[in-house]
């Protein structure tokens, strides 16, 4: 059995879709898959609902300005204040493409390991309670350890 690692750096909808489709595909090929979510990518793992946690002013600002979860991400291009993203989502739905939250759920069900970067969490003031269930918290060494055993590594 081989394994794949993906670094989810971006918090853009289109890029996150690409990551999760590759992750689901790799898992379906029988591979071990690890996705390391860092910086803007951390937002993909946030719960949709607002969670009450203790934050300082800057952390609150960050939390409010960034998309809360996989369902709130925007396209990297042609967003047009959200209209483009809405249009893309409706086309994808019509064409029966799985939504990002559904892809995330499917990935978890197939055993794809989701790791949240603790340094990014600290910088952006994202607390563990704000992340979806089943996410592991770790640093770069954990990711590198997984990458050592993988034959494909993507930075998205």
């Amino acid at each position: 059995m081989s394994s794949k690692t993906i670094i989810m750096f971006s918090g853009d909808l289109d890029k996150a879709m690409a990551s999760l489709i590759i992750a689901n595909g790799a898992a379906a090929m029988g591979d071990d898959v690890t996705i390391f979510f860092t910086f803007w990518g951390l937002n993909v793992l946030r719960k949709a609902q607002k969670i009450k946690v203790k934050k300082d002013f800057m952390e609150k600002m960050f939390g409010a300005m960034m998309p809360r979860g996989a369902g709130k991400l925007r396209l990297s291009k042609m967003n047009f204040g959200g209209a483009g993203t809405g249009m893309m989502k409706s086309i994808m739905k019509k064409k029966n493409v799985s939504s990002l939250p559904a892809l995330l759920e499917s990935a978890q069900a197939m055993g794809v390991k989701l790791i949240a970067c603790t340094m990014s969490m600290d910088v952006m003031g994202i607390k563990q309670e704000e992340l979806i269930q089943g996410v592991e918290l770790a640093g770069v060494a954990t990711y590198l350890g997984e990458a050592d055993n993988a034959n494909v590594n993507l930075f998205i």
Partner: protein
Amino acid sequence: MADKHINARGLQCPGPIVELFKVAKAAEAGDMIHIEVTDCGFGKDINAWCKKTGNELVSLEETEGVIKACIKKC
């Protein structure tokens, strides 16, 4: 040896191989898995999937936009 059927019509990539993987995982060696897919990339993908997972592609045909594949679990 059992026959298993998957209707993956309408599913987009990677839906068909995800469904196939789930069924193949639960199947026993020698079981035949029949899958119907409308995603046109599947015709090529199924070859790669079988090669990678070590299962045997017994037949592959396409009629009127529907790809039908038969896979033997090895």
